[in-house]
Each structure stands twice: as C-alpha cells, then as structure tokens.
C-alpha cells in the first residue's frame, strides 16, 4: 500500500533528530523538489522505501538491520530544512 512521507515522520525523527516531513528533497533522477511529506512511501517490507512521486525513482531506503537504522540516501540529490527555532 502506497502512503506518503507523513507516516515515516517518527522514523525520520529518530534518524535525523528533527522533524523532516517539511524538508524539501531533490530527486537525483528527475530533479523534482518536494517536501518529504509528499513522497510516495512503502512501509512494512524488509525496509521502508521512499520514492519520488513524479518519476517513481527510489529516493531513500531505510532498513532496520539488527540494532541499526541503515539509511541509503543516494536517490536524494539535495535536502533542505528550515533552521531550528532558538
């Protein structure tokens, strides 16, 4: 079942230490820039697969390997987040 980046908000909070759902990701294949919340996400498999909604390429894969979160971000050419409030 295809969901969106909202559902991995908690996982990304764990990985990045802050909320990433509003972070803008640039697809390394088609160049589309979109908030992580709007990416297509597949969960509950051997890993979580995040795909570009425009071209379907894999942006990110998170696999929980033993006690680690193994994160492959090679499909993301750039990531922008707003700076934290102080």
């Amino acid at each position, binding site marked *: 079942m295809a969901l969106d980046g909202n559902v991995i908000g908690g996982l990304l909070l764990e990985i990045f230490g802050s909320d990433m759902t509003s972070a803008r990701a640039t697809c390394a294949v088609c160049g589309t820039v979109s908030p992580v919340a709007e990416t297509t996400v597949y969960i*509950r*498999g*051997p890993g979580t697969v995040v795909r570009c909604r425009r071209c379907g390429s894999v942006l990110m894969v998170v696999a929980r390997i*033993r006690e680690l979160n193994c994160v*492959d971000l090679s499909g993301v050419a750039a990531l922008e987040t707003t700076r934290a409030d102080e």
Partner: protein
Amino acid sequence: MATSPVSRGFHRLSRPAGADAAKLPPGQHTTTDFPVLSAGPTPRTPLQEWTFSIRHGGKTLRSWTWPQFQDLPAETVTVDIHCVTRWSKLGTVWRGVPVRLLLDQVEHDAPYVLAFSDGGYTTNLPIKDVSVGGAWLAFDYEGQPLAPEHGGPARLLVPHLYFWKSAKWVRGLELLDHDQAGFWESYGYNNYGDPWREQRYAGD
C-alpha cells in the same frame, strides 16, 4: 535505559507456533493471512505484453510469451514460505513451471543469476538454487491465478530461501558471470538468505 512497559493484554496477531514449531526456522512465527509487502507500486503488465526472458551479457538467449509459458509443463507444489520480516506461512499451494525447465532450454555455465521484475526489483541467487530443483515460475496460488498484489501474473518461488528472493512480477533471469547484489541485498540484507541458518542481514 528503562525497559518498555508491557501493554496489558497485547500480543502478536498470529497464533503461537505450537505443533508447527518444529517446521519453523529460528525467529519465525506463523501467520494465517498473507501480508502484502512491496518496495513500489504494483505493476499491471497486460498478458499480451508479458514475456519471460533468459539473458546473458546484454543478449536475450530465450524468451517466452504468456501462451508459450502456459504451454510448458507445470506442477502443483505445497511449500512453506518464510519472510525475513519474521512471518511464515506453512502449506501454501502454488502452481508453476520449474525454473529448471526454462534454464534447460539455454546453453549456460553462469554461476549466478539476477532475477529482474517489472518495476525494477531485482534479487540474486546462485544458479544451483534455481537450476536443479526447488524453484518455480509460479502463476497460480491456492487454485486461483496469482493476484497482482502477490506478484501476478507470475513470480519466482524459491521457498528454501527467505521470501524476498521469490521475486514478484518477475520478467526474467539475467545469467551472471560474477555475483551482483539485488535490491534488498544492496540495502543490507544477506546475499544468500537461508532461513534455517537465519541469514537475514549481510554478515550473518
């Protein structure tokens, strides 16, 4: 770090293994449903466009259309399947063409194969794991044509390995001279995936 509090009355969905325990690989539990797990959208290739190919070095050695594939001798098998996410289903019934019959139609001495599917999924296997026995190109599940969400029209069925090796929506086998990691293998999963030796992750 404090341990998590127990949520009173919560337990996993599946029935405890009980009498089936002896048939389960380590760390697995049985399930009565058939979870749908995927890494991407469900492809919908029309049967008149479907082909299964065996390729090597950029060349297609042999290819079957759906009618040609349906003409091949198929067998009905009952097997246990084991997913790396820890669910197992015992006694599942499939109908498929042994992969051995397909590989016998080409001359090859490649030691490895990479199964490739619609949507871009791949998984690698030593050729012996599909060419001798124990591997099918399956098109029926429990007496019905294989549903798209479970890999239809045809998927690989290799029950002696973790189920991610049983590639859904499979369209062919690439014969490889050198082993090459497929999708999950390149994201940290075991290159071989024997559930009986609990080979889930790279390095197991």
